[in-house]
């Protein structure tokens, strides 16, 4: 008989900070440069070179810590984590250990299972390592040190998550927050967000935690959820068979969909942490911490709630619109410019997001401002153009810098409200379809739509459908 278990998950999330320069030198931290072209004596670990802390990276880490409700420490200390690996130029990574930047935060996430408050144990700053390239030189491993020294924060949660869905929701929420703060773009493909999951299970009702394993190499949000499911099943099978779960580090294999243990050599490190003597303790005075706190933007949760209350939007709309700060800003400008909030929401979630997706970005990548959009929606609202024509005008707006009014004018897209012209089109349609007219008059009501369609098509879509409706009724 299989026991009933509950799952306990803690996450360790590495996030790349959006600074222009690396953490301890002035090389560019950009992604995608030719190997070993963004390096200098400091990040190469050349003899005699010394690290100098990038203050902008500290500011970003500070914002992240405050947004996650952490206590930021006025003194934190950089430490050396010692181990040998070919991608680690100095033979140690500069990180924070005993005295991290911040501790004791929390983040609340919502899933179908309800709300869950996840405690954040600590946030610390550290430098990234380089990258090993196994496919560049036949039979040899090459090293690219462009990433070496890129600034990261590591965010460590308490084991408060209880399902893969919650883990995924936590990561999505975290990504949104860090995006709002301009702290990180959390792009997993480019390695700017990396996740390790600590997973254990225990019989329902047990108070002690089960033995945990650490699952690494999770390169997408869906990989996180899939790997946790697989690992939980593996642990359940072990316990059901009366075998113990062994504490170890596992690698997720995305292709096969399994986890495999790291070689024991890979994990049997004694990192010999000690305070980094080349960097004085990081001092953040209260004033700097308070200033950073007051400069935080409204965060996604608060904004979602406000969109529902202030604009009367459905919860779903509020969630979609606030997923990125740029989109939420766009919507809000549009709504505040006098556009009906629900109409604005529909347009942003519909046509605008579709056009943005085609360009591989968010609404903010489109060359259309909220002001331009408000002008367009005013034309739809006052009947100058139809809803459908509005979409066409919008598409044209993204291809040139013409305003909605200019496009409608130049392309002759305004609806025709001139009764004479409408009468002529209706007359022509009625004359051309005597059978349908007879059947309609004998009670076949659904044919009304047929006549509207004919008139609209004769007008090449420019006839004002409301007027067409009215006139048709009287003429038929």
């Amino acid at each position, binding site marked *: 008989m299989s026991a009933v278990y509950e799952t306990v998950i803690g996450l360790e999330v590495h996030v790349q900070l959006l600074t222009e320069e690396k953490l301890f030198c002035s090389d560019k931290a950009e992604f995608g440069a030719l190997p070993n072209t963004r390096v200098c*004596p400091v990040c*190469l*670990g*050349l*003899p*005699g*070179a*010394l*690290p*100098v*802390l990038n203050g902008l990276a500290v500011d970003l880490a500070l914002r992240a810590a405050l947004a996650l409700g952490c206590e930021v420490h006025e003194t934190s200390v950089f430490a*050396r984590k*010692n181990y*040998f*690996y*070919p991608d680690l*130029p*100095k*033979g*140690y990574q500069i990180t924070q250990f005993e005295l991290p930047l911040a501790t004791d935060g929390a983040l609340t996430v919502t899933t179908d299972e309800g709300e869950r408050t996840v405690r954040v144990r600590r946030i610390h700053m550290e430098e990234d390592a380089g990258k090993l390239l196994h496919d560049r030189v036949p039979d040899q*491993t090459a*090293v690219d040190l462009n990433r070496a020294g890129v600034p990261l924060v590591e965010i460590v949660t308490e084991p408060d998550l209880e399902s893969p869905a919650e883990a995924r929701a936590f990561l999505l929420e975290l990504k949104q927050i860090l995006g709002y703060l301009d702290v990180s773009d959390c792009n997993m493909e480019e390695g700017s967000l990396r996740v390790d999951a600590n997973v254990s299970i225990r019989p329902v009702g047990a108070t002690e935690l089960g033995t945990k394993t650490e699952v690494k190499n999770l390169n997408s949000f869906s990989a996180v959820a899939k790997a946790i499911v697989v690992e939980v099943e593996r642990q359940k099978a072990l316990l059901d068979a009366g075998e113990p779960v062994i504490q170890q580090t596992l690698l997720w294999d995305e292709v096969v969909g399994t986890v495999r243990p790291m070689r024991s050599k890979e994990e049997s490190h*004694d990192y*010999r*942490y*000690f305070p980094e*003597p*080349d*960097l*004085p303790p990081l001092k953040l005075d209260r004033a700097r911490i308070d200033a950073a706190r007051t400069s935080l933007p409204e965060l996604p949760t608060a904004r979602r709630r406000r969109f529902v209350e202030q604009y009367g939007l459905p919860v779903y709309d509020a969630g979609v619109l606030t997923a990125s700060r740029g989109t939420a800003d766009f919507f809000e400008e549009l709504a505040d410019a006098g556009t009906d909030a629900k109409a604005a929401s529909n347009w942003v979630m519909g046509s605008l997001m579709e056009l943005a997706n085609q360009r591989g970005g968010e609404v903010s990548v489109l060359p259309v401002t909220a002001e331009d959009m408000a002008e367009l929606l005013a034309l739809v609202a006052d009947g100058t153009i139809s809803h459908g024509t509005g979409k066409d005008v919008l598409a044209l707006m993204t291809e040139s810098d013409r305003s909605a009014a200019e496009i409608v004018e130049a392309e002759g897209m305004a609806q025709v409200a001139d009764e004479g012209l409408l009468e002529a089109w209706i007359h022509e349609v009625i004359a051309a379809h005597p059978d349908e007219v007879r059947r309609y008059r004998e009670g076949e009501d659904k044919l009304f739509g047929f006549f509207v369609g004919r008139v609209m098509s004769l007008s090449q879509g420019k006839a004002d459908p409301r007027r067409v409706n009215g006139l048709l009724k009287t003429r038929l």
Partner: protein
Amino acid sequence: MSIREIREAFNAGSGGPEAALEALAKIVRGESGNGSLNAFLCTVPEDALSEQAARAPTGRLGGVPVAVKDNLATSDLCTTCGSKILEGYVSPYEATAVRRLREAGALVVGKTNMDEFAMGSSNENSAFGPVRNPVDLARVPGGSSGGSAAAVAAGYVPVALGSDTGGSVRQPASFCGVVGVKPTYGRISRYGLVAFGSSLDQIGVLSRSVVDAAEVLGVISGHDPRDSTSSEREVPDLVGACSGDVDGLVIGVPEEYFPDTLDVQVRARCEAALERMEAAGATVRRVSLPHTRYAIPTYYVLATAEASSNLARYDGVRYGFRAPEAASAEAVYCRTRSSGFGAEVKRRIILGTYALSAGYYDAYYGRAQRVRERLACEFADVFAGGVDVLFTPTSPTVAFPLGERVADPVSMYLSDVFTVTANLANLPAISVPVGEVGGLPVGGQFIGPAWGESTMFRAAAALERAMEGSA
């Protein structure tokens, strides 16, 4: 010639590269054949030196030939740290101290031999052979800046740069009969100084006179944005300080530095020096620094712990020596480091790795840090109690014969007993010749309060004058 004389001739346009070319000629002559000191690991070619001289700006060190310890990065000469693992390595950038020398008009004539990665007190740990003491070729010059001390003592160059982690400038200065100074930690940028014990390392100067040391120290000191541990404090006028009198100066003499086991002759020279200082107007006060007895173990725990991490980068992956025919990354590490490092370096890496390892950190590294803090407080209290500067012997003995202590690392470590405290307490210290024992030089050490280089130079220059007066 003194720095002032060379500078005045050079800056007036009548000197040119003469002083530097003469220094180079002396080095080339002295370093060839039997009886060579083996003080240099590489020298600048003559035509390159002339070119350098032609481009050199006038300045505080205009035309002055300088030798530089081989653990300071120079872009035109080797930077090997006396190690096979860096044999042939040329740095793509220059140490801030070296750059400042050049900007002041100095001409770097060569890189000096040293104990491998500055680990040693006799210069016998160089992968490129020991340095000999110019005073007695059968004896060691001290270490680890033995090549720099020998080069100055032999008269090749008026000044040389060294580095001092536990006495590596002052002890060889004492053994070779020259002046050696290490300033307050943070006074000189460490950027480009190849790290041994980062929290203890400071660049220092060896010279034939106190004022020449002050001249060079004044040029290379001061904040450097590339070294976060370098101080933003203003650099005082050290040359001016050298002409100050010592009337009323209170010299503290810590009893722990004059133990019963101290060589009687060394003691006698130091006591005589103190008498001369009193004659010049200073007051001598006996003081106590009881934590000094823990200094050697504390120093060797901290220095080796930091070294074990600092030397991890020499792994054969990116630069320097790589063991041939290693099939895996792990084999590259093991073989490169096993055959690339010398015995003393490996001994210290193992010691330091142990001191930092899980389960031992608190007992060793943690405790040593606390003793270090206690020791620094003890010094601060003595200075706060009215002592202007401390005076001690620089080393318990004069230069010992080559080979004498090679087989006994602990006796070698104990030769640092009077010098390591200044590094542990981050204080400035200077060694000045105070006479000879059996033809071998004896050095006396002044230790100043933190950032108190002015007072220290004032005392050292006064002692130098008093010693000259007696000669």
